[in-house]
């Protein structure tokens, strides 16, 4: 059962990655070419039909996977690159420093990503994929900090850290050689879950017009553009919706599966 969750997640994620790779190598037609027929049913030329502007739906979905993965990778990278070191520092700190770091994380955690995206868009003068990625990335930092800190506190209490201190090593060496490799599994699991959250957030921001610009196909924006045709041509909104759901579900299942695989305490329970 545990492995089934992992495999289901990995398969869905692999499909999204495959769609992204296919879109780089091959597309049925240009995803932005406007023409006729509009709102066409599936045909040899347009495997999934066309939208209200005559753009190929299959091509737009494939290219949409790129935006989805790009935002996920960049947002999770921002969250991990900033959140993991801060979490390790917080785990090794005592007193005021630890309190300041973790309460700072609470403040960022309480700040909605949507508001952050609006602020960033306002500061740059326009909304873009970059502002969406930055807003989502910044908002995932506290979650990375929390899980890393919790794992780092456990690692720092181990005798091998005491032995390293006794051998004369400083905090830098201990963080890189001992803490980081041992918190890596929880960071990996968190990354996978955060990826799902980032995809959903990007879709929401694009739907609201605060994410990917109209010239770049994105699943969230495709749903927004299909709103007027939802009663007549449901596939225009349903297909990108299914893609978003599959991607989010895939990354969440992958995260759960990895956690079960990498957490020895959970492994013991299932035996």
């Amino acid at each position, binding site marked *: 059962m545990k492995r089934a969750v992992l495999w289901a997640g990995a398969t869905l994620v692999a499909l999204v990655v495959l769609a992204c790779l296919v879109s780089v190598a091959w597309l049925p037609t240009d995803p932005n070419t406007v023409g006729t027929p509009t709102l066409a049913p599936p045909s040899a030329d347009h495997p999934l039909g066309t939208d209200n502007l005559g753009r190929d739906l299959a091509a737009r979905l494939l290219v949409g996977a790129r935006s989805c993965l790009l935002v996920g990778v960049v947002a999770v990278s921002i969250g991990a690159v900033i959140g993991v070191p801060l979490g390790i520092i917080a785990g090794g700190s005592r007193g005021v420093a630890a309190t300041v770091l973790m309460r700072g994380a609470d403040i960022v955690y309480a700040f909605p990503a949507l508001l952050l995206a609006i602020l960033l868009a306002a500061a740059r003068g326009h909304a873009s994929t970059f502002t969406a990625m930055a807003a989502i990335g910044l908002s995932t930092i506290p979650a990375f900090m929390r899980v890393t800190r919790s794992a780092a506190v456990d690692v720092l209490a*181990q*005798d091998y850290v*005491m*032995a390293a201190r006794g*051998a*004369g090593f400083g905090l830098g060496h201990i963080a890189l*050689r001992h803490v980081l490799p041992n918190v890596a599994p929880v960071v990996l699991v968190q990354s996978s879950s955060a990826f799902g959250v980032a995809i959903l957030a990007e879709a929401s921001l694009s739907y609201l017009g605060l994410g990917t610009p109209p010239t770049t196909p994105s699943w969230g924006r495709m749903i927004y553009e299909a709103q007027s045709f939802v009663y007549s041509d449901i596939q225009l909104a349903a297909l990108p919706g299914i893609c978003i759901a599959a991607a989010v579900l895939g990354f969440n299942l992958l995260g759960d599966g990895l956690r079960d695989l990498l957490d020895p305490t959970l492994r013991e329970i299932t035996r």
Partner: protein
Amino acid sequence: MTLLEARGLDKTYRRSGNPVRAIRCIDLSVASGDRLGIVGESGSGKSTLVRMLAGLLEPSFGQVLYRGNPINGANREQLRELRRGVQMVFQDPRSSLNPRMRIGDIIAEPLFSPVQPRSIRAHAVERVAELMDLVELDDVAPNVYPHELSGGQRQRVAIARALAPAPEVLIADEAVSALDVSVRAHVLNLITDLVATQNLTLVFVSHDLTVVRHLCDRMVVMRDGVIVEQGRTEAIHANPTDDYTARLLASVPRLPGH
């Protein structure tokens, strides 16, 4: 010559906001070549004391001196001397060996410490082989992970790591308590041999009086953070002056006829 000295050592922890005085005003000295046993029941403060002696824990009051220099407020060179000269072996090798490092890297790690001369690094591979030989791990490959070894082998890895910087003081904190009885004797004999061949000064913490009698020529008995008795091991065994020591000695199980 006195290598390690505790003067009026005191340690208070905070547990759930309440102060817990783990060590109370302890004076102790360890001379070169000593084999000192520290015994006492769980919670008597043995581990806290030796961690302060190794400079791994700050005392609340009092001082630890290494070669006559206080550890607190020691300059960089004095601290280097301490880190090179005093090494510890911990109780449970499962938590004292990083599960994500190969045993060769674990043993070699202290050689790459900033307190060691850089020249030592060039010979790290040879030194690891020499140490593995010394702790009788010559039949184990250095590229295996700790979980692939038995408990006794893991503790030998921990001993090899402690010996890597060629320390003069080896502090063993319940180093055989987590091991199976059958393995315990082997590791104890190994420590006895190493102390003799490597000219080590030994501080051996244990709650097992038999082990301390086998290994140490001097012993200290601790209870509730206080030293209740200290002296020659055989003298204390023959004639304990403190009630608690007498009760501890009486609690050692004996086989009929022994």
